[in-house]
């Protein structure tokens, strides 16, 4: 079995008095794409935020590249090589495209080809033409590309990708899928939260299904597509 880059065990988290995660167990192998699926409110985004340290975990362990990261500040986790792409994109709208990329820039680990704006523009050709445009003047799809590109500028080993296809036009969703596959080619592990089964099926090797703050099912993406009962139990609304 491939080496695990991310290993989460018994992760608990919540907001104020509300508990959201009741012990999430999951792992991500090096270079693998896994889709975290589940209905609205199942705890997908909360899981990603708690792994990233944006929400303080209330219990459990998060190991990244062999080190315990639960309780570390987000910037320390990012520096260890874990990237995060938020659901709401959170682009710096006052900054230009090039400046947004600059904020994300960090050195690459030895032996890796570092990401440069030029390399990123080969994945997201639309961005190349608007290098010096303010991000506030971009469409939602362009902003979604920029937020992924910005995280890649940090040369992460693994990326947490929160709902990359949400609210985007079909043609942009296709580009997002290509981008995820390109990340996989580059050897980056991706844990993406997703409600769109087609998108997940196009990019992911494996699926994990969250329900009420726990992982209730996991298996190969093909198995999920074949198993209508599981889909009906956990995914259909």
């Amino acid at each position, binding site marked *: 079995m491939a080496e695990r880059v991310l290993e989460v065990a018994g992760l608990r988290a919540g907001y104020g008095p509300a508990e959201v995660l009741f012990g999430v167990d999951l792992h991500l192998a090096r270079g693998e794409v896994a889709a975290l699926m589940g209905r609205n409110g199942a705890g997908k985004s909360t899981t990603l935020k708690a792994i990233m340290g944006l929400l303080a975990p209330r219990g459990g362990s998060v190991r990244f590249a062999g080190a315990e990261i639960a309780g570390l500040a987000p*910037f320390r986790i*990012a520096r260890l090589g874990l990237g995060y792409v938020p659901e709401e994109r959170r682009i710096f709208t006052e900054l230009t495209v090039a400046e947004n990329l*600059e*904020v994300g820039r960090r050195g690459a680990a030895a032996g890796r080809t570092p990401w440069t704006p030029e390399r990123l523009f080969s994945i997201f050709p639309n961005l190349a033409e608007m290098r010096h445009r303010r991000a506030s003047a971009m469409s939602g799809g362009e902003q979604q590309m920029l937020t992924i590109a*910005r995280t890649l500028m940090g040369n992460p080993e693994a990326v947490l990708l929160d709902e990359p296809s949400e609210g985007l036009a079909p043609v942009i969703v296709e580009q997002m899928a290509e981008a995820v596959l390109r990340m996989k080619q580059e050897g980056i592990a991706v844990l993406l939260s997703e409600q769109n089964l087609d998108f997940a099926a196009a990019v992911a090797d494996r699926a994990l299904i969250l329900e009420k703050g726990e992982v209730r099912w996991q298996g190969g993406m093909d198995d999920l597509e074949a198993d209508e009962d599981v889909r009906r139990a956990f995914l259909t609304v």
Partner: protein
Amino acid sequence: MEWDFLLVQALSGLASASSLFVIASGLTIVFGVTRIVNFAHGSFYMLGAYIAVTIVPWLLEFDRSPWLFFVGVLASALAVGVLGVVMEVTLLRRIYRVPELFQLLATFGVVLIVQDLVLLVWGPVDITGPRAPGLRHGIFIFDQRFPAYELFLIFVGPAVLGLLWLLMHRTRFGVLIRAATQDREMVGALGVNQAMLFTGTLFLGAALAGLGGALQIPRVSANPQMDLSIIAEAFVVTVIGGMGSVPGAFLAALLIGQLQAFGVLVFPKITLVLVFLLMAVVLVIKPWGLLGKPEAAAGRAVLPEGIIDPRPLDRASQGLILVALAAVLALPLLDAYAVKVGTEVLILALAAFSLNFLVGNGGIVSFGHAAYFGLGAYGAGLLVTKAGLPMEPALLAAPLVAAAFAALFGFFVVRLSGIYLAMLTLAFAQIAYAVVFQWVEVTGGDNGLVGVWPSRWAASRETYHYLVAACCVLAIVALRRVVHAPFGATLRAARDSVQRADAIGVDVRTHRWLGFTLAGGAAGLAGGLYAFSKGSIDPTLLGIPMSVDFLSMLLLGGIQSVLGPIAGAAVFHAVKDFFMPLTDHWRLFLGLSIIGMVLVFPRGLAGAWAGLRRRPA
């Protein structure tokens, strides 16, 4: 008027705009990144001036060259920048997540500490600085002589703006600052160490304030009042420009510079009023300032910020209140000093209670509550001394006068929220202060008015004490009733979510407006009672330090509790009255206490009391 005269007037307006911008740019950058409104920015400005009047003459001993003058000015700025780093590392870093009211108070604590340290190091006498070699002459513009140094200052502002622009757009540090101004959490998630970024920002902001102060030394002598006089103006500039926006601060400084230069020709007495009026108008039209952006909702306070659930009093609290009432009644059995302090505590308790009605119950953080206290005092005082009325109608008028002004100012205030609202209350308080201070014929100006004595029947200290006790206890009971009434609950609902309150049909603005007016009236009654207890009134009753005293009482008492502020007022005033005569450094003591309270005791006395009671016996 002659054209050349108007030109010179415009030029001197540009020179003051330039100075103002240099200072305000630092304030706005620090706010943008840290979201802290730094009261101590004025202290950095003052320190810049004091350091410059110390090292520049020393440098000029070597050689009277213009270069050494500017080396000294820049060195002063850098030294102040280092002090900014000290403040960030020792204090600000610990309070990024506390509610903004506490942040304001903590930085005001720094203001008090710096005031005393400046007195310790440099003494109370103003220190005149050297003039800049090579820029001591005047330049003739048509027939008018214009100082060369002022002309030089005109170019400093745009130069600083240009350098800041380069820093913000051409360096990684600047790009990170701009990104953090918008979404600092996301900057952290991208691997940027916010602590380093914030420390760097404080260095830059403090250095700009220090530069502003150091550049002033040929124009004004360094004096211990510089900090508060500049901070109000710097606040106005940043608020008008939009908090966090450097170009906005430049624009606002230009506007204010010209307004002051020409306003002084038309309304020589009320230039300060004009400035604050401009701010009020801008904020009503553009609530985020000229070039500001709506505050990001992310990353705001974690503590519950007010009264959550007012309950009927339990046995222990009832007992405590009975003891307090008995003490109030029994005080005249002790000495006259105890009666004096007791009377003052009662008055301040009412003022603090009315403020917490706004802050704790309504989430309306007023930074200028002393205005209504002072206006009540002046309303009563003027009726007695100028109109010859006796005490009774004057006391009746005090809350009405204050409520009228609270209604007028509140009409604008309730249109805003958060830090902009706090700044507008501060601005209105400064308007009231400026009018009282400058309208010498009526108000007696700086000296105030004497002869505000109670009627004959209430003339003895003891009788007046009982009169104050009756008024204050009744007013507090009535206000407490309002807190528990549906009106109070509605204000709490609006505090917790304006949108949700709106959506269930609450007219948030009108409720807040009425609440603001009511609280102003109660503070006015306290002010009226205060005037008769002292026999005199003066502008300090409306000043920023008075407003901060009230807020400190809330902080000490605990804004989450309904009755806590009363205890806070008692402890605060008793301690202050006891310590002030004992030490020359009471400001240092008070400043450290405020900071200590914010850091270790953020829920106040009432919070500690509740914590004690919750513990199993």
